[in-house]
């Protein structure tokens, strides 16, 4: 009897460990997460417009149908990324996600405060390598440190009425996301 009780207690305790490990591990082993769903339909280090969600077909669940969405799937191992997104008439936002969908940074048109949202995305190591004088002139240039080398940039433009969707899509189509030309440290 005591042995059975001990078995149950041990089983439940071990179950707690299994639970913790599986919760922490799930984001790593998930095959249907947002990044995996978007990887086949987006280009690397370039902007891809997502189709509008409709009942039969949506790239991701729980997408807001009032928004035009474009994705830049990035890999910073080839160098920092420069992103420019023109602001649409109503509302534009840019959100940054890691490979495992952690939203580590998001900015909207008002907080960017200009007609074009301009950002540099780089890993912390690349940021540290930036020549210092360049960092000073970069005062008006927004640099974002990416926690991981790979991830997603999601650009969204609101169509406040369905008729304004083509405008929102057009403004996103003019956005740009590309690897910056490698700064040559030898010049210094």
């Amino acid at each position, binding site marked *: 009897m005591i042995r059975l009780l001990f078995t149950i207690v041990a089983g439940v305790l071990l179950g707690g460990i299994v639970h913790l490990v599986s919760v922490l591990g799930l984001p790593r082993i998930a095959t249907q997460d947002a990044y995996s769903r978007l990887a086949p339909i987006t280009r690397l280090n370039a902007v891809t417009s997502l189709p509008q969600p409709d009942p039969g077909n949506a790239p991701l669940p729980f997408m*807001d149908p009032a928004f035009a969405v474009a994705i830049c799937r990035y890999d910073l191992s080839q160098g920092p990324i420069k992103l420019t997104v023109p602001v649409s008439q109503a509302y534009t936002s840019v959100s940054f996600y890691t490979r495992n969908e952690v939203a580590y940074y998001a900015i909207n048109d008002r907080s960017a405060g200009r007609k074009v949202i301009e950002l540099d995305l780089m890993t912390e190591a690349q940021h540290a390598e930036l020549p210092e004088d360049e960092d000073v002139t970069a005062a008006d240039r927004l640099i974002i440190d990416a926690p991981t080398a790979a991830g997603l940039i999601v650009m969204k433009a609101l169509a406040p009425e369905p008729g304004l969707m083509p405008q929102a899509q057009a403004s996103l189509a003019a956005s740009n996301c590309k690897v910056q030309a490698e700064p040559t440290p030898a010049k210094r």
Partner: protein
Amino acid sequence: MRLIFITLLALMLATVVGLGATWMTATRGTDLGALTIGAWTARPKTGTADIDPYSRASIARSGELPVGTGDGVAFSATSDDRKRPLDGRCDVVVSGVTPAARFWTLTLYDSKGRLVANSLQRYGFTSQEIVRSADGSFEVRVAARSRAGNWLPTGGIERYALVLRLYDTPVGVATRSQRDAPMPSIATVGCR
């Protein structure tokens, strides 16, 4: 022999308990960091780097992208103010005011997060297209058949979820109660 049996039993129990608890929390979500106002629930921390492991697991499972905190916040509701599950065959009224935000959208999804087909191709409302009364409040009728005013069609599906997304809003991690964020009420007014 007995030792092997007992070890196996303990291991089996561990698997069932552990994976069962993981499945439950990843599917239904937890109360960790949840902000509940009336029938609406938001998890503002899922839009930050401080996201808790349970929300990460449920996001990885569902395949959605959470709204980033600098962008906005998403409130979802699957039942009305009296805890009655939202039924697409009933008439549900969403009325009142929304918290301060530059824009908001109200969208109807099925339980898997897909939009619901209807002849109008009306999947939700934005704050700009909604018809309001003189005092600025609004009333949305969520129903299977066409209704006057702001009609949001359900397609007659049994269970659905409403998601109210606020964009460019002070509502977020620091929000605690209805006073900071007055959310619209949800009432089932009739069923056939």
